[in-house]
Structure formats: C-alpha cells, structure tokens
C-alpha cells in the first residue's frame, strides 16, 4: 500500500494523527530518507495533522511522491474546512528560543521541511503543503 505514490487519509480523530505519522514514516523509509530527515518529516506531519484536527475541525492528509529532475521528494498536504487563520502574520511569528509552547506549531513545522506553503481563508479552511527533498 505504501508503494502507491499518491494517496490520502482522513484526519477525523486522534488516532488518525498516529496513523498519519506512521504513514509518513513508512513513506520516508521507503524513499530512503536519512533517519534525521525521516524524523523531521514525521514530526512536521504530526504537528500539522494535529492542527487540522484541533483548529480545523478535521480534514485530510494527502501525499505525493515527487520525482523532479533526478530529485526525489515527498509532498504532504494538510487540508481542513475549518475557520481558517485570521491573522497569518501572528500565526507565523515565533522565536526559535521560546520553548514554552508553539501556538499553532506552524513555524516549527516550517523549519523542519524544505518547502512550506500555506493558504487560508477566514471560514474557508486551511491548506498547508510541505515538501522534503532527499
């Protein structure tokens, strides 16, 4: 099942977050990412999946294995139909040294991946796309 280059799974319950983590772990292992890169991607996925659940009222994680000009990558999209982010600037500020809490975990996740895109509309849901290249 993991050799499918494209897929999705729902994020409707807490257990789904665990399933999402396991799926990302399987995918990054199959793609032979280094252990550190695997861990970074799995952790980013955990943060974003939880966001979709907690703030977005549930959604889905879509994955896509990329093969562009000899480079292999894994792209993940976390989409929800929730209330969206009203103040994007605020959501994306977070100093590196603040260890207390990460608010929405967005800035942290951003640092763990190579490409990060976010698209959110008030009452129109949120879509976060992250990509990690080998």
């Amino acid at each position: 099942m993991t050799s499918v280059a494209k897929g999705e799974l729902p994020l409707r319950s807490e257990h789904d977050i665990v399933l999402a983590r396991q799926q990302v772990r399987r995918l990054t292992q199959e793609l032979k990412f280094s252990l550190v890169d695997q861990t970074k991607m799995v952790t980013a996925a955990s943060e974003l999946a939880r966001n979709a659940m907690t703030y977005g009222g549930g959604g889905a994680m879509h994955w896509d294995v990329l093969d562009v000009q000899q480079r292999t990558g894994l792209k993940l999209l976390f989409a929800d139909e929730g209330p969206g982010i009203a103040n994007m600037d605020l959501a994306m500020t977070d100093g590196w040294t603040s260890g207390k809490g990460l608010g929405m975990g967005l800035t942290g996740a951003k640092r763990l991946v190579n490409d990060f895109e976010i698209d959110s509309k008030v009452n129109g849901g949120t879509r976060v796309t992250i990509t990690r290249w080998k």
Partner: protein
Amino acid sequence: MEKIPILRMGEFLLVTIQIDMHDQLALKLQDDLSNTITKFGSKGVLIDISSLEMVDSFIGRMVADISGIGKILGAETILVGMQPAVAITLVELGLSLPGVATALNVERGMAILRRKIDADGFDDFSR
C-alpha cells in the same frame, strides 16, 4: 483504553514509553503519574524515551508539564535516552525543554536522582 505502565522502584517511578502515543494516552499518563507520585510519596520520576522515534510539541509539552507537576508534588523528573534524530528535530522545532533534567540512560538518570535526593537538594540542576 491502553495505558502506559508505571513501574515503582523504591522511591522512584519508572515510565518506559515504547509506543506511538495518541494525545489522549499522553494526557492519561500525566494524570496517572500525578496520582501515583502522590500515592507513594515518590521522590523521583524517570521517563525513558529511548524507544521513541519521534517527539512532537505535544509530547514535549507533556514531559515539561509532568516535570512541573512532579516538582510541585515533591518529585524530581528526569528524561532519559532521547535519540539523536529526535533531539535534532526537537531543537529545530524550537523546543529546548529548559526545566526538564535529562540523562543518557536509566542508569545515569537514577544516579543523578539519587545524588539529588541525598543532597536534600532544592537546587535546580537542569543545566
């Protein structure tokens, strides 16, 4: 519902986290630990995460909270066995868990706790 077992070793409690926890399970652990510390008057808690291949902000916060709660209840907490990949990722994520003591493994962790308790210490040794 599954729960994470808490082992009592004299004055200490040992928790070995070996599974991929969902959020509720983590919160339950926090609850169970708080109750167990009080029940036995434990002086120290070792959280062994040497089997954990991922620690995200939720689990990180849980550990920090357990440490804080434990202190209030009279027990020192020490986090042991974090894997290198996990440490690198946590740091990149922005979490440094400043109030949580750490050790390389359970043995070292116990030695540190023992020293701390023998010294009657109120010093903060989360260097």
